[in-house]
Structure formats: structure tokens, C-alpha cells
């Protein structure tokens, strides 16, 4: 290392015209014959120019710099370029500071964000971060909470989701299945929903079981699919499905699939759940569900153009005695 420093010191002296003739000739011989040495002298030249621009040269060095170093037109050109580069870096804050400086120079980081002419990178990075955070949050939630606790209590004795009928009136269950933003009020009734017939009003779902269906996460495997326990008294199931797609849409197409066959297709609006964030909800009579595995495929519905990327959720219906 000290040899390197000595070598660089000698090169610096050479560039400033401070060496005797013999030493100078030996250096120039090496410069001609050894490419790596020529590269090193270029680095020392750059350092000299930078030191000059930052007023870091000693008086003697400054004299040599002006009277010897700058006599070569090429080096004057280098100085011009270095000067322009210095001004450019100072004015543009071209790149964010390195990690170690972030604490000290938060303001520079913000300036970078504000001034950078490529906001698309920040937008993309922010989008990816949000998605990763959301997926992580969902994963943590699913690990911390046993699946059966994700359902908001539906077992008889008495079931908290099976609230007594308060007063007569129109069904709060949205007759238009596309609009699921309203809170579902559950009514006390032992009447089971029946299969919808043409011209017949949809059955009033008065005892609704609510279940959150989490997306199939990579690496979780089949065994971790959601379970939807349905009590004998429930006549409807409200499936709350967190929307986890790269691009956000206001509406999603939901396909409910069983044994490879579509049994339900609905276009649903996104609503915001306090706990789950952006969700779509599907209210479905229990009569349409049997004790088996189901799959939900969710795809964004753009105003125009092709459907968004597909996200798959699966759940298994379990009948409680």
C-alpha cells in the first residue's frame, strides 16, 4: 500500500513537472509500455484536476499545475469537463446519496425525489413496495391467526353473526349483487334460502356467515387453503376477498369455480374494509355451496381493454353439525 502511495506521489510530481529528467523519462517509458500504468496516471490526473477544482492543491502544487500540467491542451479540456461535471452534480443532485449518508442528508434525498427527471422509477418502486408490504401483511395475518378465527363467528350458541331481527324493512342485503359496498345486516331467521327460480325474488339471506378468503400465496401449499364453516342455521355466506393485484381497479370480475366448472360469475365493486383494506364481497346462499373445495378467480375490470391479471383464491366449505 505504501508502495502504491509512493508511486502515486511520484506520478503526481511527474504531472506537476517536479521530477528530474531521469525519473521523468523512466515514468514515460512505463507509460508507453504498460497499459495499466497509463490507467493509473489517468486516475492521478483526474485527482489533480479535482483537487484544483476543490482548492485542495498546495501553493507549490498549484504553481506546477498552472505552469506545467495545464500546458497540454488535452488537460485543459479535461479541466473544462471536470468543471462542468462538478457543476452538474452540484446542481442536479443526479443520484441519491449512498446508504450511509441517508440519515445526514435526508433533505438531499427529498430534493432528489422532487427534482429527478425519472419519476417513473419512483412510482414503480413505490408500487412494488406497497404490494410487497400488503402481501407480507396478509401472510403475517394468516400465520398469526388460525384460519377458523378469520371467520367472524358463525357457530350456534348463539352465533354472533346471527343477530336477532330488529325491525321489519327492506333487506339490507344488496339486491344488486354488483354493489357489495354496504354492510350486510344479518337477520334472524331459520328459513333456509332456496334455489332461485326465474321471476322469483332472491331469497332473503337472514343468517349470514362471514368469511375472509385469503389469496393463495406462493409456497403455502394446498393444505393451507381457507375453510368456510357453515352452521345449520346460516342461510347465506358473505365472502370477503382482499384484492391483491398489481394494478388497482374499481371493479373486478369474480368467477366461482367448483370441480373445474364455473358456478357463479359476478362483476363486483371494490369496497374498503377497516381491517382488510380493499376487498370485494360476494354474498351467496348456502344452498349453492356444498361440502367441497372451491376456487375463486378474480380479475380486474378495466373501463376498456383486456381484463387485468388473474388472482386465485381457494376455500373449502365445511358443514357444522
Amino acid at each position, binding site marked *: 500500500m505504501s508502495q502504491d502511495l509512493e508511486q502515486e506521489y511520484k506520478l503526481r510530481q511527474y504531472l506537476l513537472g517536479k521530477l528530474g529528467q531521469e525519473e*521523468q523519462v523512466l515514468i514515460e*517509458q512505463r507509460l508507453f509500455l504498460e497499459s495499466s500504468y497509463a490507467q493509473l496516471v489517468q*486516475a492521478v490526473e483526474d485527482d489533480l484536476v*479535482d483537487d484544483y477544482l476543490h482548492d485542495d492543491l498546495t501553493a507549490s502544487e498549484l504553481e506546477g499545475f498552472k505552469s506545467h500540467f495545464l500546458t497540454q*491542451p*488535452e488537460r485543459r479540456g479535461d479541466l*473544462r*469537463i471536470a468543471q462542468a461535471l462538478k457543476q452538474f452534480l452540484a446542481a442536479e443532485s443526479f443520484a441519491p*446519496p449512498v446508504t450511509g449518508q441517508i440519515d445526514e442528508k435526508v433533505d438531499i434525498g427529498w430534493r432528489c425525489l422532487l427534482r429527478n427527471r425519472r419519476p417513473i422509477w419512483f412510482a414503480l418502486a413505490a408500487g412494488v413496495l406497497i404490494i410487497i408490504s400488503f402481501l407480507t401483511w396478509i401472510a403475517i395475518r394468516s400465520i398469526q391467526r388460525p384460519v377458523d378465527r378469520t371467520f367472524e363467528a358463525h357457530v350456534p350458541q348463539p352465533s354472533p353473526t346471527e343477530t336477532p331481527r330488529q325491525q321489519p324493512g327492506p333487506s339490507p342485503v344488496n339486491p344488486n349483487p354488483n354493489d357489495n359496498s354496504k354492510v350486510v345486516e344479518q337477520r334472524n331467521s331459520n328459513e333456509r334460502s332456496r334455489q332461485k327460480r326465474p321471476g322469483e325474488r332472491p331469497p332473503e339471506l337472514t343468517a349470514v356467515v362471514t368469511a375472509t378468503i385469503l389469496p393463495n400465496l406462493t409456497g403455502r401449499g394446498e393444505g393451507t387453503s381457507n375453510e368456510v364453516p357453515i352452521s345449520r342455521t346460516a342461510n347465506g355466506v358473505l365472502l370477503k376477498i382482499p384484492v391483491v393485484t398489481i394494478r388497482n381497479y374499481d371493479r373486478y370480475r369474480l368467477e366461482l369455480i367448483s370441480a373445474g366448472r364455473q358456478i357463479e360469475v359476478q362483476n363486483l365493486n371494490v369496497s374498503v374494509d377497516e381491517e382488510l383494506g380493499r376487498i370485494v364481497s360476494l354474498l351467496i346462499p348456502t344452498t349453492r355451496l356444498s361440502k367441497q373445495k372451491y376456487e375463486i378467480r378474480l380479475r380486474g375490470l378495466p373501463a376498456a381493454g383486456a381484463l387485468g391479471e388473474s388472482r386465485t383464491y381457494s376455500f373449502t366449505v365445511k358443514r357444522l353439525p
Partner: protein
Amino acid sequence: MLDSGLIDWVSQSQTPYGSRTNLDDPPSPIQKWVLTIESFDGMLLWLDQNRDRAGEKYEQIRSRLIRRFSQLGWPEPEQLTNETFDRVAKTLPRVRANYSGSPEPYFYSVAFNIHREHLRRPIMVALGDTDLSYSDSESLDSEKTSQQELLDSCLRECMEKLDLRNREIIANYYRGERQDKIRSRKSLAERMNMKLENLRLRAQRIRANLKKCILDCMERKAQSTANH
């Protein structure tokens, strides 16, 4: 044994001043210098008092110069080699009085300066010839201003062309003053998982490429302006 044709060879060099001793001198007037038998003999004698050994040394130097000029990418390495001998013979009367040590390095030293001179490009001369008083505060006339604008625009263009990693290196390596700069470089080296020396060489390589890009850009734009 010796290349006798060299003796009659007439230097075509337009800058017939010596290697480094002339760096501080004003340019000499353009003149043709002819390698005479006397100057060639003087050069051989300087290489070795024994004429045969001098001839061997001459041939060794000659073949090494041709090989190296060729490695450096020059299309006519023999011509540059002849130019080297020509210049050594010419400057020898002035140099040898104060010169100590082996003569061979001097040939390569002259060759290095010839190589460097041929590397200079017209655009660099134009850029370098703008009168610098080595002060930031000097007001620039309109020509200098347009030159500066050209440089700034090319710098911007070339910085945009750098990939993200190289841009980050350049921005962080050359940013800051004194302690800030040192700290910034250390931090950058750690982050890039590099030794400081390697980071320095990398930064220098990027800077050299950046410079080449800027000069190409300036040359292109200057030509484009001239054509209009």
C-alpha cells in the same frame, strides 16, 4: 543490418519539437528536419560505443516500438517508430549533456509523447484552446458561452446514457468536498462491495468513457452546426 532507408527519410512531422523538454516551450515554427548520417551515427554512439552492439540495441528498440505502437492500435506503427528515432536524433545534442542513466528509456519516453500527440483530437484542441485564467469568475464571451453550452448539453446527454449503477458511482464518487468526499467514497465502496482502489479505477474508467462520449457529442454537434 541497420535500416539505411531511415537515413534518407524526411520527417513529415508538423510539430518537430522534442518530447517533454518542449512541453513548456512555445511551439517551434513548422519546419522539416532531415535525419542526417551524422545525427543517426550520434544516436547510435549514444546507445553504445561499440557500433555492432549499438546496432543490436537499435534493432531491439525498433522492433519493440513497432510492436507497442501496433498494440496501441496505430495503423502505421513503422511510421511512428521512424518518427520516434527521428525525434531522438534531433533532440539528442540538447538532451545528452544533462542526461544521466541508460539511453533506452529515453526512446520510449519520446515514443510515449508521440503517441500522446497523435491521440489529440481537433475538438479537444478547440476545447482546450479557450483561454482559461484558471478562475471560475472569468466572464465568458459569446463564443465561450456557446462552447460551454455545448459542453453542458453533451455532458447532460452522456450522463443520461450511463446505466444506473455507473451513474450512481460517478455521482457519489465525485460529489462533495474533502471529508464528505472521503466518507462518501468509503460508503460507496462498501455498498458496491469493492475495495477503494478498485472503485477508484472503476470511477476513472467511467469518467474516461464519459469524456469520450462528451467529445464525440461535441464533435458531432459542432459538425452539424457547421453544415447548417
